[in-house]
């Protein structure tokens, strides 16, 4: 790419709506693409922005009524750029030079627009690097901005400070993107991850639509990742070496877990209510006791017989889950916490239990316990001024099942999304129906990465509250169905459409592991 390829000049615009750029006749409109970066050389400042719309203009409307003979190359050449011209709509988002702030502190958000007839250039690689940074100890290379060779780097330390979301239709590459991000967090941030891996995609190996299986985290970073499983047999079949088999005791299930499962277990509201009474009556062992109890005993507790039967049916569904045991030999929560404390990332595979009941139950239960622990530790650390617990990122899939407006009030995840930042716990939400997620939770997400979405409501809910959302909407709608995504929010200085880096080839694995090693080597050098 040539440096500073001139595109045209600014002819009109506003801060709210972006500026209109008239293309020079030398720049072909067909080379422009929505989502490309440009710089605008104002008189005092340099602006950095993104093309959000490309359109055709003409000086005289008569031209459209009686088009000239453009078959003649001479006439076509004369008219191009003069009577007929291309216009770009550019949304300036950052100031990257010129004033003292942006020189000292890097790109600053725009508060004005460039003056009339400022020259617009295609952003050079250096400009893009200036904005998105280069790969370093904090920043992780996640992909290339569309049509560019430059690396797009995400500031992962900033990223893990808030809850984040990855969205996109099924099959658009959410899982691959998540894997890349997990590797990034594993290497470049201080945070540890707890992944509720519903489809067994992250731990040992994952599937790829292209055919061959791709390596999971454990294969690439065996020392930093522990694979927990709910289904030992299935893991053995898949020849996955697991570190821990999770069993859940009856006494670990709380009434809140049941009310969350009310819809999936088909419980009536009275039945869900009754659970709390049973818990009060029997204490920790309420599940066991309820299952052993008969309807007569229920009456004593003022529970109607039909309600009781309904509840019994629901509870026995849970009881039938093979990983639920009356008295498990191990404590899963303790084991998870131990690993996390050691800085080991935990991937919990669900094996064959892919139905949503098991997923919601386990994810919610474990998270709640871990949340409680973190809250306690953090408060203690703040009171005693000691070290705070390691930041934790909990990854959940099918998030709309937990975070929909009805369930959000009952699950721990909405609390985490809303306020757990203070307690060093954040969420990484992966979902294909963002419109199903409570808007309150969506609004608290720091960084959102979205692959192609085509449902109007989904797009609206993802882009809610983002400045320049109409422009982003057109970028989002034009994403390719695979391996293209749009990232915006806290961890990036401006919204950007990008192509995630490659994952799956032998070379890509080397690059992933190499960048981690290089870092440790650097550290070792310090000690020499």
């Amino acid at each position, binding site marked *: 790419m040539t440096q500073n390829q001139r595109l045209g000049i600014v002819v009109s615009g506003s801060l709210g709506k972006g500026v209109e750029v008239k293309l020079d*006749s030398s720049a072909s409109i067909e080379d422009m693409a929505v989502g490309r970066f440009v710089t605008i050389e104002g008189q005092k400042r340099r602006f950095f922005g993104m093309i959000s719309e490309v359109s055709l203009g003409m*000086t*005289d409307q*008569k*031209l459209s009524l*009686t088009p*000239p003979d453009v078959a*003649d190359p*001479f*006439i076509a*050449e*004369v*008219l191009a*750029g*003069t*009577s007929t011209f291309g216009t770009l709509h550019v949304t300036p988002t950052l100031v990257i030079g010129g004033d003292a702030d942006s020189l000292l502190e890097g790109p600053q958000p725009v508060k004005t627009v460039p003056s009339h007839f400022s020259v617009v250039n295609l952003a050079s690689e250096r400009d893009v690097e200036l904005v998105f940074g280069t790969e370093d100890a904090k920043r992780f290379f996640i992909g290339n901005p569309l049509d560019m060779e430059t690396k797009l780097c995400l500031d992962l330390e900033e990223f893990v400070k808030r809850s984040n979301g990855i969205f996109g239709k099924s099959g658009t590459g959410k899982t691959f993107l998540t894997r890349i991000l997990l590797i990034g967090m594993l290497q470049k941030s201080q945070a540890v991850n707890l992944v509720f891996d519903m489809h067994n995609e992250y731990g040992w190996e994952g599937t790829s639509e292209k055919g061959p299986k791709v390596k999971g985290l454990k294969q690439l970073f065996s020392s930093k990742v522990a694979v927990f499983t709910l289904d030992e047999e299935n893991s053995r079949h898949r020849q996955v070496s697991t570190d821990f088999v999770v069993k859940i005791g009856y006494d670990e299930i709380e009434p809140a877990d049941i009310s969350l499962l009310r819809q999936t277990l088909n419980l009536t509201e009275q039945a869900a209510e009754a659970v709390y009474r049973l818990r009060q009556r029997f204490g920790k062992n309420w599940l066991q006791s309820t299952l052993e109890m008969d309807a007569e005993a229920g009456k004593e507790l003022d529970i109607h017989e039909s309600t009781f039967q309904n509840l019994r049916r629901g509870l026995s569904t849970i009881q039938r889950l093979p990983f639920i045991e009356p008295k498990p030999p191990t404590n899963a929560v303790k084991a998870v916490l131990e690993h996390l404390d050691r800085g080991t990332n935990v991937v919990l595979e669900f094996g064959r239990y892919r139905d949503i009941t098991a997923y919601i139950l386990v994810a919610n239960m474990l998270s709640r316990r871990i949340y409680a622990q973190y809250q306690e530790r953090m408060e203690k650390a703040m009171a005693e001024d000691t070290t705070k617990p390691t930041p934790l990122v909990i990854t959940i899939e099918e998030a709309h099942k937990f975070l929909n407006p009805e369930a959000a009030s009952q699950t721990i995840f909405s609390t985490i999304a809303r306020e757990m930042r203070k307690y060093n716990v954040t969420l990484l939400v992966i979902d294909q129906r963002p419109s199903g997620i409570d808007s309150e939770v969506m609004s608290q997400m720091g960084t959102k990465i979205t692959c192609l979405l085509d449902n109007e409501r989904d797009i609206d809910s993802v882009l809610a509250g983002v400045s320049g959302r109409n422009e982003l909407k057109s970028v989002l709608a034009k994403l390719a169905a695979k391996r293209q995504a749009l990232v915006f929010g806290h961890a990036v200085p401006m919204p950007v459409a990008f192509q995630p880096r490659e994952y799956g080839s032998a070379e890509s694995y080397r690059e992933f592991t190499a960048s981690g090693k290089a870092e440790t080597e650097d550290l070792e050098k310090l000690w020499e």
Partner: protein
Amino acid sequence: MAELERVGEVIEASTTSFTAQCYELYEIPPLGSLVKTGNSSAELYGIVYNAATTSLEPGRRPIARGKDEKTEEAIYRSSPQLAKLLRSEFGAIVVGYKEGDRLYHHLPPQPARIHSFVYQCIRAEVMEFGQSFDFLNILLNANLPVPAEELVSASLRQMSQAHQDPRAFLVAAGKELAILLSGNLNQLKAILGRIKT
């Protein structure tokens, strides 16, 4: 530097144009070509917009003489006085001037003087003059007996011959015209149709 070709002498002058009489009958510079006149302190540039051959005396019209002659040339051979009784003259619209080394593409402070010699500009001068298209505006807005599109296209065709890449010159001129004539598409089309290569 090549010898300047003297083509005539100014017989009528105003701020915007001058008329020159040719020294030889019918030796008129082509329509749209660049001519210059004036002295060494200020040279005026003009573009030939009109030419005419008439009788020397306004009241005496020429009469047909070729009834018994075989060819046209024979008429002039048998009546040699004709070359003296007829005269060719051309009008040029002033489009700029040169003072010292500087070339200006606007009207000069003084008009040409009567009896100034008129020269056909050489290639280097045409190229130098053609570096700016400001003269197009003068041509388009002048109130002349010839249609502006004819004059503009003729002058551009003439000038393009002096350039190494006539097409590039015409494209650049066309773009300038497209801007000048953004409100008059038909005129633009007419000119482009006349200068396309």
